């Protein structure tokens, strides 16, 4: 009898081309995504070496980080951004890689388009020069972010050299409370184990709460695995996964799909397999969450207060006070009732159709609060079109929300969508780092529902009182 094995190990081991003494594993990569920011230097490397792309069919490109979210059909105004997108165009043309460029019906944030096109499938290895590649793990694959030197390795050889990380399982069981979403689950986990608590690990999420979630909700959780330091997170595929993939553009079709599902069904952690670390979480303990600090581990349940200085370990006090000073907050204060200036609903964490539907459902017939600016940035052209087909655009327009063109937008403020200095933004994105949404911007990370309530009330609120 073979020893019980984790799902992670099964997928990893099946992709090792060579395991040699004194070397990291040469790991074969099934699917590679690229975007304009982290790929140009990799292509330059290929040119310098005089080599071509190993297998063009396994790489897909899109433009997302730099792109404007208004008048996307016009040339990009900002010269450097335009140059970067043009460089991507040239590189894809020169090397023969499929590009979903601005104006293409498949364009969008790289981690949104992979799944929606059916490029992301169970059992694969997936990489991209972007840390939120962990999103794809929701489909039961090994997906993780890499640096540009590694992008070059993949383009050149379809492999990267990696040491196998340790394994962690986080099991969440029980029923979620009213107003609690998958975003709250992951913010809760990160607040418990800290922004570095899973460094060196690959996480498997399990338990009946996870099994009850939609694919969109699962992606939100896997997306933020990196925010606790993990390279990635994965969830064993099940009927929900197969139903999501069925019929998608690049998914196996017909009989091939049925055959694939047969294989995918075997992708599970064996009973008795051991993890280097296990964590159990009770879904009933999770409240709607919000962050107060400048890393995603600095989060609290909405009924709690910003931690007092006496709750902070001596060694972390300096960083803690620096962070609160940046945020303009006091230890011990409530966040409920805190006025906000901006609401950003977008990013690869929460800009899928289900997120937009959830926001629209709450907002229908309501108005945004005076003085609050609300940006809704769909994750892809397909999400935007779907939102329009369902009339969500009308709901948002009536509420005074701006529905923009797809891209990363204010998640990282590389284009002109920046939160001004000193202003507060409730954001559905994944990082509240200093200056992330613009120099001196202040970010409260929260769920789309909490963001929607902030938009109509102009304040941070406990969503349970509104839904």
């Amino acid at each position, binding site marked *: 009898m073979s020893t019980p094995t984790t799902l992670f190990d099964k997928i990893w081991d099946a992709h090792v*081309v060579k395991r040699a003494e004194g070397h990291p594993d040469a790991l074969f990569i099934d699917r590679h995504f690229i975007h304009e*920011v982290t790929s140009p230097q990799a292509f*330059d490397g290929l040119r310098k070496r005089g080599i071509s792309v190993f297998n063009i069919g396994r790489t897909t490109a899109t433009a997302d980080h730099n792109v404007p979210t208004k008048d996307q059909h016009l040339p990009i105004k900002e010269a450097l951004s335009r140059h970067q997108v043009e460089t991507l165009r040239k590189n894809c043309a020169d090397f023969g890689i499929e590009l979903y460029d601005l104006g293409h019906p498949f364009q969008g944030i790289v981690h949104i388009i992979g799944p929606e096109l059916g490029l992301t499938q169970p059992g694969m290895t997936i990489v991209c020069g972007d840390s939120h590649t962990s999103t794809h793990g929701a489909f039961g694959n090994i997906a993780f972010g890499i640096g540009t030197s*590694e992008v070059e390795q993949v383009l050149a050889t379809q492999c990267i050299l990696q040491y196998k990380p340790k394994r962690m399982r986080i099991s969440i069981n029980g029923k979620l409370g009213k107003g609690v979403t998958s975003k709250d689950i992951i913010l809760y986990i990160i607040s418990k184990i800290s922004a*570095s608590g899973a460094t060196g690990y690959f996480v498997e999420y399990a338990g009946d709460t996870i099994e009850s979630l939609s694919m969109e909700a699962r992606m939100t959780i896997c997306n933020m695995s990196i925010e606790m330091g993990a390279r990635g997170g994965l969830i064993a595929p099940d009927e929900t996964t197969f139903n999501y993939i069925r019929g998608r553009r690049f998914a196996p079709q017909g009989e091939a799909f049925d055959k694939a599902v047969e294989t995918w069904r075997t992708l599970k952690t064996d009973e008795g397999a051991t993890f280097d670390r296990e964590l159990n979480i009770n879904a009933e303990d999770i409240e709607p969450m919000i962050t107060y600090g400048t890393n995603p581990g600095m989060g609290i349940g909405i009924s709690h207060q910003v931690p007092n200085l006496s709750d902070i370990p001596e*060694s972390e006090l300096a960083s803690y006070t620096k962070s609160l000073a940046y945020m303009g907050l006091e230890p011990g204060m409530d966040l409920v009732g805190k006025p906000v200036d901006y609401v950003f609903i977008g990013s690869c964490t929460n800009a899928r159709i289900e997120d937009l539907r959830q926001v629209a459902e709450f907002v229908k017939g309501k108005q945004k609060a005076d003085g609050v600016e609300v940006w809704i940035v769909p994750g892809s052209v397909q999400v935007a079109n779907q939102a329009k087909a369902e009339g969500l655009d009308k709901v948002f327009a009536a509420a005074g929300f701006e529905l923009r063109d797809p891209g990363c937008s204010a998640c990282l403020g590389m284009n002109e969508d920046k939160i001004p200095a000193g202003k507060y933004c409730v954001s559905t994105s994944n990082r509240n780092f200093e200056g992330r949404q613009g120099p001196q911007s202040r970010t409260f990370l929260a769920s789309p529902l909490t963001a929607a309530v902030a938009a109509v009330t102009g304040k941070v609120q406990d969503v349970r009182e509104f839904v």
Partner: protein
Amino acid sequence: MSKETFTKLTATAAPLPIENIDTDQIIPARFLKATTREGFGDNLFRDWRYNADDTPKADFVLNNLTYADARILVAGKNFGMGSSREHAAWAIHDYGFKVVISSFFADIFKNNALNNFVLPAQVSDAFLAEIFKAIDADPHTLITVDLANQTITLANGLSESFDINTYKKTCLMNGYDDIDYLLSLKEDIKQFDLAHA
């Protein structure tokens, strides 16, 4: 890339005793628009280093001439968390740092640094505190980082060893990069690709 190597360095160090320094601080996203690897050093720690009007912030360590020759960056726990942007490693390298010392590194940053011949040397919290103390006592104190022996030694004789996997150590000391090795496996990879089409 040029054949750069790292073996041993004795230099002064710039102290940055802040925990959880993320890659957005190391190099903010709005400076990621270049399509080459050069020039990122000017924007290293941009928003900590410069005011909104681009004047230097007098109290930031990189603006202190005392540390102008520093080739080692010493930072608080969990350095380099966040984004996978290799630009963070390029900025550190381009600025002139050869080594970053911390008591904990984020995974992707560590790989990116190693791929750019910047050595991320992880030490204990206690030894990190000793390093900060030594720099505090004498900003010109010399620190020796010896990759062959995997040790960091302070001027007062205190020393600690650090871990690095043998493969990466060989690469750094000899100027190898991962692609050279992977290209040597090309036939194996082709077979694998065909079998997994």
